[in-house]
C-alpha cells in the first residue's frame, strides 16, 4: 500500500513538471489557435541563454532580465514573420510551420551557444523527505509549488488586467474581438512572450534536473498527451492532465511494465490520451467545437 501511495504521489508530482511545459502550449493555443511544436525549442533556447549568461559571470537576475528581453524579441519576430503571414490558414499548416520553427530555433540557439551540456544549479537540494514511510521528492514538491504559482499569476493576469481580458476576448471569438478594435497582432506578441516566460521557468526546472542540453526540447513530446487529456484551451486542464499523465505513467511502469518487459513510458501516455480522446474528444476541460455548416 505504501509502495502504491508513494508511486502515486511521486507520479503526481512528476506530472506537474509536464504541466509546466503544457501551460505554455495552452497560452499560445488559446490566443492564436496554434499547437506550437516549437515550444520545446523555445524552452531550450530560454534555458540555454540563461545558463550561457551566468557562465559568463552575469548575475542571475541580470541573466533573467536579458533572457526575458530576448524572449520578447523572439515573440515579436515570430509574430511578424510567421503568424501574420499565416493568418487564417488551417491549424495543420500552422502546426507544420512551428515544426520548421523548431529547427530554426534549435539551429540558432545551439549554433551560437554551443551544444555542450551545461549544469544548472537552482540551489534546490534534491534530498528525499519522508512522510511516514512514503518518500517524496523535495525538488518535485518545489516544482509543483512553482506550477501552482504560475497558474495563480496567469489567472490574475487574465482576469484582472486589460490585456488579459482582451486576450480572453480573442480566444473566445477572434472575429468579434477584431471588430472591437483589439490589436490582435499585439496580443499574439504578448502571448508568445508570456509563453516564452513560462518556457523559461519550465526550462530552468527541467534543466536543473537533467542538465541544459538538446533533449530539453524533447519534453514537447510529453506535453502533447497532457494537452489532449486536459484540453488545449484550459490551464487548469494542463495541470490536471499533467497529474494524470504523471501518475498514470508512474503506476503503469511499476505495475504493468514488469509484465511487458518495462520501458513502456514513451507510449503509455499516448495510449492513455487516446482513451481519453474516445471518451471526451475535447479533453477534460476543453471546449467542444461546434461545427458550423
Amino acid at each position: 500500500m505504501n509502495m502504491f501511495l508513494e508511486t502515486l504521489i511521486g507520479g503526481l508530482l512528476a506530472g506537474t513538471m509536464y504541466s509546466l511545459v503544457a501551460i505554455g502550449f495552452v497560452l499560445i493555443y488559446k490566443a492564436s489557435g496554434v499547437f506550437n511544436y516549437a515550444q520545446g525549442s523555445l524552452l531550450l533556447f530560454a534555458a540555454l541563454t540563461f545558463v550561457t549568461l551566468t557562465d559568463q559571470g552575469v548575475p542571475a537576475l541580470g541573466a533573467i532580465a536579458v533572457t526575458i528581453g530576448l524572449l520578447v524579441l523572439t515573440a515579436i519576430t515570430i509574430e511578424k514573420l510567421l503568424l501574420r503571414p499565416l493568418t487564417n490558414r488551417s491549424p495543420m499548416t500552422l502546426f507544420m510551420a512551428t515544426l520548421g520553427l523548431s529547427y530554426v530555433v534549435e539551429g540558432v540557439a545551439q549554433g551560437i551557444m554551443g551544444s555542450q551540456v551545461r549544469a544548472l544549479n537552482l540551489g534546490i537540494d534534491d534530498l528525499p523527505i519522508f512522510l511516514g514511510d512514503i518518500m517524496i521528492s523535495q525538488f518535485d514538491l518545489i516544482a509543483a509549488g512553482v506550477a501552482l504559482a504560475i497558474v495563480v499569476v496567469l489567472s490574475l493576469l487574465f482576469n484582472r488586467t486589460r490585456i488579459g481580458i482582451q486576450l480572453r476576448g480573442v480566444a473566445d471569438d477572434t472575429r468579434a474581438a477584431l471588430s472591437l478594435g483589439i490589436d490582435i497582432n499585439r496580443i499574439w506578441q504578448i502571448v508568445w512572450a508570456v509563453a516564452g516566460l513560462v518556457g523559461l521557468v519550465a526550462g530552468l526546472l527541467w534543466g536543473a534536473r537533467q542538465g541544459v542540453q538538446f533533449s530539453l526540447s524533447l519534453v514537447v513530446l510529453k506535453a502533447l498527451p497532457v494537452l489532449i487529456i486536459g484540453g488545449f484551451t484550459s490551464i487548469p486542464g494542463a495541470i490536471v492532465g499533467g497529474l494524470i499523465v504523471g501518475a498514470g505513467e508512474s503506476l503503469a511502469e511499476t505495475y504493468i511494465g514488469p509484465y511487458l518487459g518495462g520501458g513502456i513510458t514513451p507510449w503509455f501516455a499516448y495510449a492513455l490520451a487516446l482513451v481519453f480522446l474516445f471518451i471526451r474528444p475535447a479533453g477534460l476541460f476543453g471546449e467542444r467545437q461546434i461545427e458550423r455548416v
Partner: protein
Amino acid sequence: MSEINLPAAAEPIDQVGLKVLTIVATLALLVTAPFLASEYWINAIIVPFLILSLAGLGLNLLTGYGGQLSLGAGAFMMVGAYATFSLQLRVPELPLPLALIVAGFIAGAVGLAFGIPSTRIKGFYLIVSTLAAQFFFEWLFLKFPWFYNGNSSATIALSRGLSFFGLDANSPHGRYYLTLGIVALLTLLSFNLIRGQTGRNWMAIRDMDTAAAVIGVPVFRAKLQAFAVSSFILGIAGALWAFAYLGSASVQSFGLTRSYQILFIIIIGGLGTIRGAYLGAGFVSLLPLALDWLFQHLFSGHVDAGLLQNIQKAIFGLLIIWFLIKEPEGLARLLSLRRTQGARRRLFPS
C-alpha cells in the same frame, strides 16, 4: 494516339508532342540511369531518393489527399520492414515480391487500426494516434526479440539478400531496378485511385468533411481506406528502405525524425499531388548535399564546423516555413508549367 489529332483547345499539338517527348526521355533516362551515374550516386542518392518518394507518396495519400495529418509514417515503414524480415525468415518459401506485398498488407492493417480514432478525432488531434503508433512500435520491435530473431544487435537484415523471382538484385543495379519497378507500379496504382471514386472521397473529406458526410460520402470507410492504403505503401517503402537501401535496419531507421522527414517531403513537394512526393524527396535528399557543398566552398576553415551544421539546420527550418507561407502547394506548383490554372487551392480549410 488518335487524340493527338483532335483539335483539342486545351493542349495544342506541339505541347502534346512535347509531353510525349518528355515522358519518353524520362523513361529512357530512368532505364539507363545506372549506366550514366556512378555507383555512389545510385547507392547513396538515387535509390534512397526513390524510396523516400514512395514513402512521401504513401503519406501524401493520407495527408495530402485524405487530409489526415500523420506523424507516424516511420511507424508504418517500420511495420513493413519488420514484417518483410519475419516473412523471409519464417516463411522462406514465399518469394520476396510476395513477401513485400504481404508485409504491405500487414502494415496496411496496422495503419487501419491506428486510423480508427480518426473517425472520432479530427485535425491535428489525430497526431496523437499516429504518434502513439510511432512510439508503440519503436518499443515493440525493440522489446521482443522475436521480431529481430533474437540477435544481439536488435537489427534486421535479409540473410539471403534480395532476389526477384530468381534474379539476383543485390548489386547496385539490381537494387535500383527493383526499387524503380516497385515505385513505378505503386505510383501508377496510386494515380488510378486518386483520379477515381476513392480519390474523390478522400479529397472531399480533406476539403470539408462534414459536408462530405452530408452529401453521402462514406467518411468512415474512406478515412480507413486512406489509412490502409497509405500504410500499405509506407510499409513497402519501409521494407525497401531497410533492405534495398540500408541493407540492415533497426528501429532507429524509422524513428520520429524519419516521420518528420516524410512529412517535410510532402509539404515541400506539394500536398495533394503525386509528383510532389518526388519533388519533395529530391529536394530533401539534395538540399543537405547542396548546402554542404556551398558551405564548404564559401566558409571552409573560416567558420566552426558545429556552427556550420547548426546554420544548415536553421536554413532547412526557414525553408519549410517559407514554403508554407509562399507556396503552400510546394514545388509541384512552383515548377508547374500550367501556372495559369487560376487561384490557389486552399488545403485544409480551417
